[in-house]
């Protein structure tokens, strides 16, 4: 299958299909350098795109060099949002550190929290009750829908489809209402604990969530009816920002970007964590590696996530009175009511809150499929109450590395569609 750019006259008219050869810039893979001949001709304009530009998803700065409308040089400058999360987490007890990973990517908060909690649990070797496992899955899929909705709304907004934003934020609000119902907050929930969940699932959540699963597919139908056959949308997304399968792997791309380049790879299927091997879902794969296919993958993933949520609800409704957190008093806070009657519970509570629990010495790397791709969490413990080292493999950072390759032969207007399609969250890039 071959794809060539639909835009005439960008480069040679008989541009080779993208699956032949690599388009990764030589020498420095993440920088598009202006050909010397073009620079000598003296007709290259260097401009700053960002860091404060409404379509840079935060504070991304791209230094681009233009020859007419063509982008001939590109260099990404990141770090404006660097807040030292990894360093801060080394100062906190394991228990307190759980609040940080969700804040690095404020759209995929639940998935990031899951990655870190799974890493702690792997070091602790703690058994998690099945109710907690299924609820984690449910919330992670709700979170995936939330993240994709924000992506769709903003990516469409940036290339001119303003109405899309209002439609997607309608469903997004329903998702956040569900989060608020379960956890008390709309974002940055800190609902996952080492050992299970922080609280039991509230009464009334299942019917509310069921109502959402009926609403969501209609929402996706509506979005598709807005843009799927929209001439402007197609013109601005098809054949733009091409990334071949080999280049995507070489550049470490994951998640929707990788799947839009024709690689059938999803950690939920290929390296199942939680109970993803017990639910039925499909991994959408598209083959053109352009902006339009990334959009298609996002849309289909929202439908598949809704299907997973329904299956989670079916299971969870049969687990009403089961425990939601492991019964391990060295790690898990004792139930609140016990504090009034049991001295031991009070001591455990005090010890966990003041000095934290100790995690056995070791190093683990845990990867989960966040809405943006492989979110990895490398954690080192020295056996003490605080992490020795925490490092996040941020899928957004890696996605930005592909900008130079995607931007080969692109126009300046395509830049916005391409950067949008890579779905980066700058909080996660800079950490």
């Amino acid at each position, binding site marked *: 299958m071959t794809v060539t750019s639909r835009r005439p006259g960008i480069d040679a008219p008989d541009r080779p299909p993208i699956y032949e050869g690599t388009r990764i810039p030589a020498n420095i893979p993440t920088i598009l350098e202006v050909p010397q001949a073009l620079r000598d001709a003296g007709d290259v304009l260097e401009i700053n795109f960002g860091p404060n530009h409404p379509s840079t998803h935060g504070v991304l700065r791209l230094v681009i060099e233009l020859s007419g409308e063509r982008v001939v040089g590109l260099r990404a400058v990141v770090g404006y949002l660097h807040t*030292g999360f990894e360093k801060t987490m080394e100062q906190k007890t394991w228990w307190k550190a759980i609040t940080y990973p969700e804040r690095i990517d404020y759209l995929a908060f639940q998935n990031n929290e899951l990655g870190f909690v799974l890493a702690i649990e792997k070091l602790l070797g703690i058994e998690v009750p099945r109710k907690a496992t299924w609820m984690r899955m449910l919330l992670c899929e709700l979170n995936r829908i939330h993240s994709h909705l924000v992506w769709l709304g903003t990516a469409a907004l940036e290339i001119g489809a303003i109405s899309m934003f209002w439609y997607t934020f309608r469903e997004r609000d329903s998702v956040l209402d569900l989060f608020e119902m379960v956890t008390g907050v709309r974002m940055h929930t800190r609902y996952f604990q080492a050992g299970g969940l922080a609280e039991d699932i509230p009464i009334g959540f299942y019917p509310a969530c069921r109502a959402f699963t009926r609403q969501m597919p209609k929402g996706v139908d509506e979005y598709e009816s807005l843009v799927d056959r929209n001439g402007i949308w197609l013109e601005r997304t098809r054949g733009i920002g091409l990334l071949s399968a080999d280049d995507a792997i070489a550049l470490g791309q994951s998640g929707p970007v990788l799947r839009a380049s024709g690689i059938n790879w999803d950690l939920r299927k*290929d390296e199942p964590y939680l109970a993803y091997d017990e639910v039925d879902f499909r991994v959408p794969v598209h083959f053109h590696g352009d902006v339009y296919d990334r959009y298609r993958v996002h849309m289909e993933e929202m439908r598949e996530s809704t299907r997973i949520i329904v299956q989670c609800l079916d299971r969870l409704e049969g687990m009403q009175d089961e425990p939601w957190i492991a019964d391990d008093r060295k790690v898990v806070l004792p139930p609140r009511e016990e504090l009034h009657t049991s001295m031991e519970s009070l001591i455990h509570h005090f010890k966990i809150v003041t000095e934290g629990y100790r995690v056995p010495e070791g190093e683990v790397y845990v990867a989960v499929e966040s809405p943006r791709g492989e979110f990895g969490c490398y954690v080192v413990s020295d056996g003490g109450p605080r992490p020795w080292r925490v490092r996040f493999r941020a899928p957004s950072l890696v996605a930005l590395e592909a900008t130079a390759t995607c931007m080969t032969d692109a126009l300046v207007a395509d830049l916005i569609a391409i950067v949008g399609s890579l779905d980066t969250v700058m909080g996660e890039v800079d950490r």
Partner: protein
Amino acid sequence: MTAEGAPLRRTPARPGGAERYLGVPGLVETKEEHGEVTLIVDAPRLLEACRYLRDDMGFWFLSDISATDYLGWGEKEVAGYIGTASGRDINTLSSQGYARKPEPKPKRFAMNYHLLALREGAPRVRVQVWLDDSEQVDSVVPVWPTADWHEREAWDLMGIPVAGHPNLTRILMEDDWVGHPLRKDYPIGGEPVRFSGDE
């Protein structure tokens, strides 16, 4: 192209866990903990080992590069790490800290390369290289282009000099920043304030 997706370079599955990596060039030690395989590789032969793992073992996907500083591992008095604001020492033996002393580490820094093979079973392997302060490590950008920013980050935040990197500049901190913030001896708090009224 097949219906399942673009042709991946698949390598035949080999049996076993850690022992299947015995052919890796420069291999010093193999560990298997928590179901994860760690290959400790001699630093000068890192590139050779990476090429072997990619071409012969099918690890075409580099997930991550993490640098770790083990200065003061299991000891007291590392700047910023022992004692809280009120001065309480919570990491001494038999008080409120370690249950036992952690295993000593061979050198100060570890570079961890997390590799993934995109095939059934999703095998992962961690290549670990031990380095002293300011000891160089070869860049793996020629093997996996995605290493570009990861290695810049290791240099920026941990001060690992990566030899042969095409563009080894700071990535998250400013270009004129002094020091490498993720090192254990980097002070916490009290950094010089820019744009203060005194200047």
